[in-house]
Each structure stands twice: as C-alpha cells, then as structure tokens.
C-alpha cells in the first residue's frame, strides 16, 4: 500500500462536493485516527467539518488538495482518494 498522505484529487461527479458527497467525505475522514485537511483555491478546511467542506463550494471539474496526518494518515488519504475517484458513488 502506498504511504502517500497528500495530493491533488479531481472532482468528477456531476454535482461536485454537494451536501451528500461532503457528508460521505466527512464520514470517511471521521473513521480514521488522522487529521484531514482539504484545500481548494487557497482555502484549507478541516475535512471532518461538513460545513467547512461545503464552504469550499467545489463544482464538478475542480481540483482539491487533500492532506492527512496522524497515525492513520496514509489510510485516511487512500480511502478519501478512492471515494473521490469513484465520484462519491454517484457515477
């Protein structure tokens, strides 16, 4: 398994990081012993805060930068990457 803990991810689902997608991301982030930070257009928010993630207002086609730290940082990063690449299960 890769040990990456940060990188860029493309938002590919039609609705972008809308309420339900943001809920899923936050749920995944919360299930790891890791700090999760999501950045978009120069603004970084707590990946465990649904309001923070919503405030990024990421539409389809935008890119987010995800950064994880802590004991399960790599696992958290991988799980979030899978979720985003899967279009939050909406594709």
């Amino acid at each position, binding site marked *: 398994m890769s040990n990456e803990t940060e990188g860029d991810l493309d938002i590919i689902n039609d609705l972008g990081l809308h309420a*339900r997608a943001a809920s899923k991301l936050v749920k995944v982030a919360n299930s790891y012993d890791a700090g999760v930070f999501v950045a978009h257009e120069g603004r970084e928010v707590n990946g465990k805060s649904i*309001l923070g993630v919503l405030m990024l207002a990421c539409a389809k086609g935008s890119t987010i930068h995800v950064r994880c730290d802590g004991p399960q940082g790599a696992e958290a990063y991988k799980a979030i990457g899978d979720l985003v690449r899967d279009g939050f299960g909406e594709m």
Partner: protein
Amino acid sequence: MSKSPDERRDDGSGRDQRTGIAASPGVAIGPAYVVDRRRIHVPHRTVDKTELDAEVRRFRKALRETQAQLEQIKSRLPHGEHRQILKAQQLMLRDPDLTGGVEQTIREAQLCAEWALAKATDEIVATLQRADDQYFRERSSDITFLADRVLLTLRGEHPEQIRPPAGAVVVAHDLSPADTAELARTEVVGMVMAGGGQTSHSAIIARSMEIPAVVGIDDIDATVQDGDTVIVDAIHGVVVVRPRPAELAQWEEIRDRYEQFEDRVQREHGLPATARDGTHITLRANVALEAEIGSALFHGAEGVGLYRTEFMFMERDVPPTEEEHYRLAKMVLRRVAPYPVVFRTFDLGSDKPTKLINFNERERNPAMGLRSLRLALREREMFLAQIRGLLRAAVHGPLRIMMPLISGVSELREAFDAVAEARRQLEDARIAHAQDVPVGTMIEMPSAALIADRLAPHVDFMSIGTNDLIQYTLAIDRDNDHVGYLYRPLHPAVLRLVQSIAAVGKEQGVPVSLCGEMAADPRFTWVLVGLGVRELSMHPSAIPVIKNIIRSSDIQEMEALAERVLAAPDVDEAERLVLSVMSERFPEHLEHGGGQPWLVERGQRS
C-alpha cells in the same frame, strides 16, 4: 363586478388592504395565526465569567435537543431524498468546527449562546452566498434553517409545532414542505403568504386542501399579529387585515354567497359537461402533486389533462429514477382510472431552479433560454429515465405522454427519437411496457401554432398552452410589473391562433385541448368553445363553475360570440364584448370564478 368594499387605504384604525396573487380560490375570514419562520430574534447578551460553563452546557443541550427533533422529523418522512437532506443537517449539527467555534466564542468573547451561534452561521452563510455555483448559494438557506432551529430550541420552543386553531387564517412568509404537511391535518380556513407564486409548494397544498390562499404579499407576516382578523379574498387576490366592523359584515355576506354558489355548482359534479344542444366538452384537471388528485376527482374531472412532473425534480440532489417515475405514474393512473392521465415531460428551466442541472451562466432571458424540451434533449439520461418509467406505467392504465415547448417538426422528431430509444432500452432489458402509448405535443409557441397542420400528422393529440402562447405571441412577461398590463388573452392574434389550431385538429381528426389559465376563467369559456376547442384542462376547483356555464349554454350562442370577437377591430373591443355578454349572462360565475384581476379592473373602469 365584485361588490367588495372599495376602500384601499388604511383609515387610521389599523385597517390594511393588500393585493397579491390568488393561488387557491375562495373567500375566508378568521383570526390570524402567524407562523414566523424567518426572522428569529437573536438576543445580544454578554455572559458573566462565572456563568460561562453553564452557557456552554446550555448550548450543548440545545444541540442535543435539536438533533433529537431532526431524528423525529426524519422518522416521519417517507421520501428518500428528504431524509438525506435531514441526515446532512444532523451531520452539520455535529460539525466540530461549528460547535467548537461557537463554544470558543462563548468563552472568549463572553457572548450568549444565541449570539455566538448567529455569528458563526452568518459567516458560513456569507461565504456560501459568494460561491459561483448556484447549488452552493442555495445551501445557505439550509444553514439558516438549521441555525433558526437551534435558536428556537435555546429559547425553549419547538419550531415544528404548527398548531393553528380551527377557523384560523395562517399568515407566513413562506412554508416549508414539512410545515404544509402539518397544516394539512388542521382545520385552517385560509392562507396568506409573503413569498411563493401560483405554482409554489404552499399554493398547491392550499388548492389540494381547498382553502382560499393569497400569495406574494411582501412582508405580510411582519404586519399581521396573532389574532388579528384577516379577510382572504382569493378570487381577486385581496387581503384585508383588521377590517372595520361594518365592512366585516359585508365580507361575511360575500363569503356566504360564494360558499352557497360553490355548493350549488358542485352538486353537478357527477353530471357531464354537455351543452344544451348536446355538444360535449371534456373537462380535465391540471395537477402538479399527487395531493391534488383527490380534489380533481371530487370536482368531477374526466381525467388529468396536464400532470406537471417538475416537482419530482425539485428539492433533491439526484435525479428521479425510472423506478420512481414508474411508481408515481402507476399510482396516479390507478386513482384516476378509468379516465386518462396526460403526463407532460419535465418542463424545467433556469427560472424553475433545480439542483440537478447546473445552469452555468445566469440566463438573461430564461423564457427563451435552455428550458423544457430543449433541456430534456440535452439532459438525455434524465429524459430517457422519465420516458421509460412512463412507458412501463402505461401497462396499468390510459397514460399519455406530452412533449412541451415544441417549435416545429424536426424538434418533435428528436423527441420521438428519445421515446423510441427508451422503448428499445426496455425491450433490450426485457422489461414490460405498453406498446401503443399516445404521444402528443403542447402548442405554446407561435411557430408551432402556425404550423399545427404539419405537426398534427405526427401526434396523437395537441394541447394549447395559452400561458406561454400569449407570452410569446405578445412578447409580454406578465410577471413584469411594467408590461404585465399588456398580457391580454383576448388579443386578436391569440384568438386567431387558437381558432386555427382547433380547425387543424378537426380537419385531421387530432384531439385538441387547451390547458392554460384561460381554461379556468369563466369569462373565456364561450369564446374558447366557440372557437372550436372541445377539451379544457384547468385547476380542479374551477371545473364545477366552467361545467355549469357549459351546461346552461348552446353551442350556437358560443360560436356566435366567438365570431363577433374575432371580428372585433382591436383587443379593447374584444374584451368589452366578452365582458358585457358574459357578465350579463353569468354574473354569479364571473363574480365567484377565479380569473386574472386585470380584466376585472379594466372592466370596472369602463
């Protein structure tokens, strides 16, 4: 025309008269029950250092209670999509940034919980409102709604307790779907709303409950207090607050006369809409929500002439599935059987926003923009899912599919290609569906009206949508205050188009119906039937009045009036003619039947 008191100004006794949009016909009088969903007072109080722990505990307790309220509402909701919205709201309530931030503000700035919460959510709302994407801008209202709920809980109140006493008139800024669902179980007699239009959720619910409603009166919820007497004249769209005692008696008489008239025409609900000479006119209902079907049947509709499917696409994050379309249509067909139901495919546009479609730019002219069928052809998957669901449901009853906003034959062909593709998909998947579902077209653009003879050979039926046909023919946006007065259905150009479409239908044996608001207006019944229209589709409660007119008329007199109106030199003369004939023959119907206020006012002036 109406004998309603003509006092328009506040006489100093607190009387207030306002005009809005009549959204559900009738006259109601009762004490106001004000539902305040908008402005919640936020106390600005500082907290003593020794009380800070207690204040934080108070905030946490309110969060827990709000969480429980949401859980309870969620458990009452059957609909999948609404539950998802509530789940997201519950997650927001647990948001560590929000709760942590508020607690920090309480401790550091020594602000009371309400103030600290309002500061935090205002910031979030402001950020979201700056987003480029419309979806995120609209989310800001979710946050406000949630914050209001917590604020009320902090005050010890439960926001969803809408319990108006029997006989009350509900006054509100606007009501959420949850609020209106609660209202349906009460015995309110009328509704007045600051927001909303004819097709808003609350307006539709009011119609399904058959209570008079006037919407679109700015700030009405701020000027009325609980217990104030409110008169709702939802025939003319007038609301009188705190009337003088003398006029109250007059209004009570108007209301009683209206109710007696309604009862009288309603008694004919089981009789056919057949003129004295035997000409039968089919009267059907326009329906937008399942909740309106009961009202349609009660009023004697011979089926649904226009089922608007747009509501299925609103207030949700993912498009309705084929299965949802199928289930809804099947249920509607079962209830309306043995009569047919005409489902119009989704008529959405940037003026009827849905989160499902990202309108990348604000359209300058939504009426002429990417909307309706044009949008359906672009959002092909959504369109195909709907058609597949409808084709499947057609196994259960007489279902018809109607295409909106067709401009000509080639566009019609594209729409038919989509139907053929949906059918192939069902065949490939070996899913049961009906083979011979009638497909028809709306005629609502001058282009389509002028070439109705070319469209007719391709379709099973045509339906004239007068709202758009008038708007496009006269280039009038009737919601635009500056030009709304030019919206005149009896304009000779409009009448000629209606006449020629009806003639094409007769020649080619293609049924022609008319489903705009004109159909529901008793002033126009003779003219429309006289021009050759044999099927009218309207909001359910208008059916008894229109039926009564038809049953007391002869086709000859209707045709004679249509002929005279067509010969009128201009629209002024056409209106004068129609008004004088109809108001002499049917004074009660014109007084009580719903209709646009413009003609009433013009009639009063002349």
